[in-house]
């Protein structure tokens, strides 16, 4: 009731009939026992963007399913309340009618492209409506032009990059010319430049009169396009609904990623009460023999006969020492994964040499190298197969022919570190995505590698989950070096003591974050955009002398101020 009044207050005066109006909406998946969304109410006019944010599992996707008809048409359960589209009951609309009026881009757009080429995929929706062919072709042309992707028309859908996937998926939805556009975490797998382009596109679509509902926990990025309304959710309930300014108060910086200044304000306010402390990353001090070295490594994938091979890694030399915490940054397709897969011998250099513990990888098998280097792949779905978590973790050490007693001990250790003891006897495939990510990590940790390589460890996870996860990894005993590929500058600021900036198959810069990330021109060339955290850090750098995460900065700031205060007092 309360929320409803609030909702009505927030309709800007003088606007027309709301396009989307939701009242006291609740849904419980059959057999779940709890409501996935609970008494949600809001109302969005034409031309407005509603940003919905909240931690994983809070019901964001479920809310969208209620608006696009997947609930009640495809998911079983109990539904309460009302959802109106221009005054019409959404739950009573025909599916085809709803498809025409509400367009949805799903959480993982690569699964949304169902035809072999982009043009054919954009035509898919209008074809299903049984429109005449000239009309369909006209719509395809207009959609592709709207997104400026006419050039992709004949491209194979499976060979698109992340950003192109996204645009193609949106084009496919726009071909149905919907009034409402629902976007479920559209930025998840994009590099910063592509994410920025996508956001500008959403703004443009809203300005053309569409109503946009944008689900995204990267609130910091989404705020750049000034959404008219914001809704925060937690455990199915609405915790805030209103404008951006009001959210500054209401948002929890642990749950969603907020601009650095906001976080600092909050931490300052809380700090007096909690006295939490944040361990800064130890500074980079290369010592001893390098564990891994590359000397002028070059690599290209085998190509089709007749087509010249394209070099992906173009003469890379590097050394990894114990104590390194390396963030690898660079645009999509620049060769980051290709470069790091050489480390465990999955790919062998065509010229130059990769040595691990002093031995060239060409002389050793992947299994032998796995004793030293652990490689965690981005998608846990690509490796989980065993009926129990415990067996999954034992798979690696068994392949390495470790002794039974050793394996048991290492599995227990990995379970403990990744907080998976309660799940040890459950099937890994039945766990949530975040837990699966941890199983994937644990199944590499159980092999006790000296160097841990992680390919995009935080992609597709919410902020609270991934900060906890990264904190755990960075504090692991026994791991001498950690290398992680990421598109998130802030992750590099928070966890790395060394950054590799990759562009076009070479490392263009290698050094401590303070040095590499202060070259803004170079960052731009590498498809990276400065975040608010980087800006704050750069502004304060003269005084801090190093880069810190927002929480630590706030505490540092408090410390300085108290010190200032004390010094003025004593003076």
């Amino acid at each position, binding site marked *: 009731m309360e929320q409803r009044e609030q909702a009505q207050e927030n309709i800007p005066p003088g606007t027309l009939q709301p396009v989307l109006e939701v009242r*006291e909406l*609740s849904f419980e*998946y*059959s*057999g*779940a026992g709890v409501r996935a969304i609970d*008494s949600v109410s809001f109302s969005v006019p034409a031309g407005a963007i509603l940003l919905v944010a909240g931690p994983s599992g809070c019901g964001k996707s479920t809310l969208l399913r209620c608006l696009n008809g997947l*609930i*009640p*048409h*495809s*998911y*079983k*359960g*109990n*539904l*309460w*309340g*009302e959802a109106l589209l221009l005054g019409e009951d959404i*739950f009573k609309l025909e599916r085809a009618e709803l498809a025409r009026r509400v367009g949805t881009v799903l959480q993982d757009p690569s699964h949304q492209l169902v035809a072999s080429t982009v043009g054919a995929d954009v035509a898919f929706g209008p074809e299903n409506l049984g429109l005449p062919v000239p009309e369909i072709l006209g719509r395809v042309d207009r959609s592709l032009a709207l997104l400026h992707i006419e050039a992709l028309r004949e491209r194979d859908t499976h060979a698109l990059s992340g950003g192109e996937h996204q645009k193609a998926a949106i084009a496919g939805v726009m071909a149905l010319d919907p009034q409402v556009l629902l976007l479920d975490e559209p930025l998840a797998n994009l590099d910063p430049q592509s994410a920025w382009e996508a956001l500008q596109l959403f703004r443009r679509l809203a300005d053309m009169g569409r109503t946009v509902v944008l689900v995204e926990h990267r609130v910091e990025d989404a705020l750049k396009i000034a959404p008219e309304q914001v809704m925060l959710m937690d455990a199915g309930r609405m915790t805030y609904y209103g404008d951006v300014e009001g959210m500054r108060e209401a948002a929890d910086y642990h749950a969603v990623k907020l601009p650095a200044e906001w976080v600092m304000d909050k931490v300052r306010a809380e700090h007096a009460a909690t006295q939490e402390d944040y361990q800064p990353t130890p500074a980079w001090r290369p010592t001893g023999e390098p564990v891994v070295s590359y000397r002028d490594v070059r690599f290209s994938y085998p190509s089709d006969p007749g087509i010249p091979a394209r070099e992906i890694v173009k003469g890379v030399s590097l050394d990894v020492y114990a104590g390194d915490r390396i963030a690898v940054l660079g645009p999509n397709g620049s060769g980051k994964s290709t470069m790091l897969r050489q480390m465990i011998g999955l790919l062998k250099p065509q010229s130059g040499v990769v040595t691990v513990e002093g031995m060239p990888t060409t002389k050793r098998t992947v299994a032998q190298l796995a004793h030293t280097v652990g490689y965690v792949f981005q998608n846990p779905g690509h490796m989980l*197969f065993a*009926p129990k978590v415990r067996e999954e973790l034992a798979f690696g050490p068994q392949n390495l022919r470790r002794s039974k007693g050793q394996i048991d001990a290492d599995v227990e250790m990995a379970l403990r570190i990744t907080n998976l003891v309660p799940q040890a006897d459950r*099937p*890994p*495939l*039945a766990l*949530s995505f975040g837990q699966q990510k941890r199983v994937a990590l644990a199944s590499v940790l159980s092999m006790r590698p000296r160097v841990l390589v992680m390919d995009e460890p935080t992609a597709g996870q919410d902020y609270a989950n991934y900060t906890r996860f990264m904190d755990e990894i960075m504090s692991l005993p026994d791991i001498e070096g950690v290398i992680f590929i990421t598109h998130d500058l802030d992750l590099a600021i928070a966890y790395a003591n060394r950054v590799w900036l990759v562009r076009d198959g070479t490392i263009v810069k290698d050094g401590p974050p303070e040095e590499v990330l202060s070259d803004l021109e170079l960052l731009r060339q590498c498809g990276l955009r400065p975040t608010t955290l980087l800006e704050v850090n750069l502004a304060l750098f003269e005084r801090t002398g190093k880069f810190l995460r927002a929480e630590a900065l706030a505490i540092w700031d408090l410390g300085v101020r108290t010190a200032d205060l004390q010094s003025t007092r004593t003076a």
Partner: protein
Amino acid sequence: MAQRVDVMRTDTRDNPWTVGTREVVYMAIGAALYGLFSWLTTGLRIPGPFNSSARPGVAIPLFFGAAFGPVVGFFSGFVGNIIGDLLSGYGFSFNWSLGNGLMGLVAGLASYYIRRLDNPRTIAISVGFAILGIIVGMGFASFTDIWFYNIDLNAAWTEFVPIFIANSLSAIVLIPILAIAWEAVRTRTGQTA
């Protein structure tokens, strides 16, 4: 005062022969996987005079049949076999594709008797139907070679027996493994019925 809305979900599994979006997607996935796996294992030769290769991938149409019904099983086998030939460049063999389809179809008849593959009994039933499917489907393919190429009965038997053994082994080993894994993820997907 919340208004309660009646929610229905068309449960396509009530009739094993219904084809909705769900079945269309599983047909496509089954066919793509079977085609891919067949192509990847073309190197694994079955000992014997015929140029047949061992295909652990047959577990795919058999499992898809048991899990998603006879139509999905048929399509996975039939189109999957064509895709396998398409990838390896072996041309196109009509009766063998049809035989693979029949194999998946018969395996899919198990869905008349079992709804979930979550215990040893239902898994055993699905493996039983799978073996029946192999007999019918591979039998059809081998024995229609008599008509297509005028080979004689003995030749057809020499073709059939090794394939029957290899496929049955794949079914016995891989169907239970896939069934257990599928039941584990099933609760996470929309298949909560």
